[in-house]
């Protein structure tokens, strides 16, 4: 029965023109639009630096002097770690990514208003950094990502060093140095350590910090983009993530069509001696197969049709896309399994999860994910869109490493939880739901 139902529903999906349009034609059209829209940006702005105002408060310079024994009175705003990092950011062709204007707050605001700069980076302290933008856009998203990653990296290094100090693996010579290390403001004593920080993305290897290390310098985060330093790719990753999550719609529709309360075919299925779990699982499997095919076709179109360069991580991108589709379908399966709801209500819930989750995960506003991570990290762990985009962001920003594996781990955990809950809900037969006088 499983295979027969699987084949029947697969045929049903393939032959439904509206489904085929929404899940295949729509992503294709959107991908093409992205390509056409960003194509010109690629050629015009990729090697052009983004103009940014940097406003450094006196307190930030004072704080830096206080914690850095090597700092002299001549230290200026340009010597702060954030300034060094911003200066070092480069495109693939080694041209600088940012054009920095160090100026006071009023002038910076004036420049932002007149659109001479894309954003203002205000440094109030070593870790107190704020980005102001006047409008949303790709360059603003890039700036938001840079600041977000800088903050994230600094706090990771800070945590690592603090833990090493606590475990006795890192010696510090005096109180001042300890305080400096705790704030994440470190000096690297030799080239080897610097390069290891650079290549390690946000993951700092313990090897960097030998017991003899006294000072470490955090100079730059050159490896910002992981294996692939194309910031525009995030938009295509978002598109793939959307396709994956859209799988939930077809699962919801198909599983609900087997409910007696939702369709006459469902009524006929419910009076037959079928095992509810097997029936629902076979429908789920058919939808999953269909959606995986759609996701892969979309990816193939982006890669070979439009020539989008996803870098050297294609295998991992395909893997993430397949797992993401499984997550999307599981979400639809779970919503379909909740008892006593009408299809309209289920669709509304799903749309809220998809759109709201998408918003919270930064599909519409790149900085949102970082804000949620800071204020309510649990939401990023249970929001399917956030879990999925995090996996894609990890590939794009950090390459394949622990961060990516952690994202995949969350993705799998959430999928297993949703699937298990769906199967448990499927165990209950549907008597009592159908209502008609």
């Amino acid at each position, binding site marked *: *029965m499983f295979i*027969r*139902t699987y084949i*029947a529903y697969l*045929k*049903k999906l393939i*032959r*439904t023109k509206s489904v085929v349009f929404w899940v295949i034609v729509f992503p294709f059209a959107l991908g093409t639009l992205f390509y056409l829209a960003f194509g010109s940006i690629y050629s015009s702005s990729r090697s052009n630096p983004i103009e940014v105002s940097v406003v450094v408060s006196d307190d930030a310079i004072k704080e830096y002097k206080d914690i850095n024994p090597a700092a002299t009175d001549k230290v200026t705003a340009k010597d702060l770690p954030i300034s060094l990092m911003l200066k070092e950011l480069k495109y693939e062709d080694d041209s600088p990514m940012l054009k920095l204007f160090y100026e006071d707050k009023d002038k910076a605001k004036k420049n932002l208003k007149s659109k001479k700069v894309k954003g203002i980076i205000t440094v109030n302290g070593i870790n107190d950094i704020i980005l102001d933008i006047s409008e949303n856009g790709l360059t603003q998203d890039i700036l938001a990502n840079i600041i977000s990653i800088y903050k994230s990296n600094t706090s990771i290094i800070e945590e690592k060093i603090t833990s090493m100090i606590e475990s006795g693996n890192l010696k510090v010579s005096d109180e001042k140095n300890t305080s400096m290390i705790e704030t994440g403001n470190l000096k690297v004593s030799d080239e080897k350590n610097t390069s290891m920080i650079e290549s390690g993305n946000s993951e700092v290897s313990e090897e960097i910090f030998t017991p003899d290390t006294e000072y470490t310098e955090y100079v730059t985060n050159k490896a910002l983009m992981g294996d692939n330093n194309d910031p525009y790719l995030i938009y295509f990753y978002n598109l793939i993530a959307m396709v994956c999550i859209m799988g939930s719609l077809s699962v919801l529709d198909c599983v609900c069509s087997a409910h*007696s309360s939702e*369709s*006459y*075919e469902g*009524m*006929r*299925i*419910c*009076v*037959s*001696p*079928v*095992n509810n779990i097997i029936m629902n699982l076979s429908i789920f499997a058919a939808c999953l197969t269909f959606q995986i095919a759609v996701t892969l076709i979309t990816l193939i179109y982006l890669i070979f049709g439009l020539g989008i360069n996803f870098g050297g991580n294609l295998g991992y991108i395909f893997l993430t896309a397949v797992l993401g589709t499984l997550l999307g379908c599981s979400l639809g399966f779970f919503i379909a399994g909740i008892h006593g709801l009408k299809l309209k209500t289920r669709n509304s819930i799903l749309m809220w999860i998809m759109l709201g989750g998408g918003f919270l995960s930064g599909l519409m506003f790149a900085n949102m994910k970082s804000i949620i991570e800071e204020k309510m990290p649990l939401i990023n762990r249970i929001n399917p869109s956030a879990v999925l985009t995090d996996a894609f962001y990890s590939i794009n920003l950090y390459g394949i490493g622990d961060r990516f594996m952690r994202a995949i781990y969350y993705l799998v955990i959430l999928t297993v939880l949703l699937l298990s809950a769906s199967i448990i809900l499927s165990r209950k*037969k*549907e*008597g*009592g739901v*159908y*209502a*008609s*006088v």
Partner: protein
Amino acid sequence: MEEIVRVNNLVKRYKDLIALDNFSFSIKKGEIFGLLGPNGSGKSTTINCILSLLTYDKGEVYLFGEKMNVNRNDIKKRIGLIGQNVAVFNELSVYENIDFFCGLYINDKATRRKYVEDALEFTGLNDYRKKSPKKLSGGLIRRLNIACGIAHKPELIIFDEPTVAVDPQSRNNILEGIKDLNKNGATVIYTSHYMEEVEEICSRILIMDKGHEICQGTADELKGQIKNTENVILNVKYIDESDLEGLKKIHHVYSVKYADKVLTIRFSGGKHNISHVLDYISEHSINYERIYSELPTLNDVFLEITGKELRD
């Protein structure tokens, strides 16, 4: 004879509305049992309760001598359902639809293939096996609906208003098909608000209203329970009140009703009363277009017991 269905004191409430009020009946093997009642009388609710598609507040349902509940797959295997709405997948062909729904009951591939062929043959859909339901006419799609419900050769077949919005020719085909299924051994429950159909095919009829049983028996038994023996009907453009009173005085007349230019005279004794009416209208020079006589119908039974028409 073996009892196939027994419903004991079924009570179903929808908030303040009592859809079924201590409703009971039983059906014996080989019967075509008609459940007749106006819209909203509780026919579909009864069917849904029997099939465990709907929970009920009180009462018991026994099918094939066993208590029915939502998990009784062994009982469900022996039942077929043909509802008033077409329940097929538009994306699958005629053959694929029958095969899919038959496959919910029959696992063995060879048996299933034979059953699907039998269903195609029975419903006359052989020539349309590869067609999409979307390309079938209204009558053919109804036949497909029936084929999907009977392909697994159920012992109890439930037809829930299968002729709603069906043209007369297709309706006759469906009724003939039901008779054939019954001849082949199936017990049938047939719900409808069309009294003529029920009267034509059902061996026993239960008339219900507002979740209650009004009466039950064969069509003749039901008609025998009322005083109406004959109706004389005239198409009259105009008639005086005095003539209406005069008609009431004819021997055996117990009701005269004039509405929408139709004069209905009901008699409570004997037959062939039309001659008395003809005598009266010629004496009083009443102009009429048509006059005819008919025996009482189930509608008259319903009317006499409830005071309202089945079609209301």
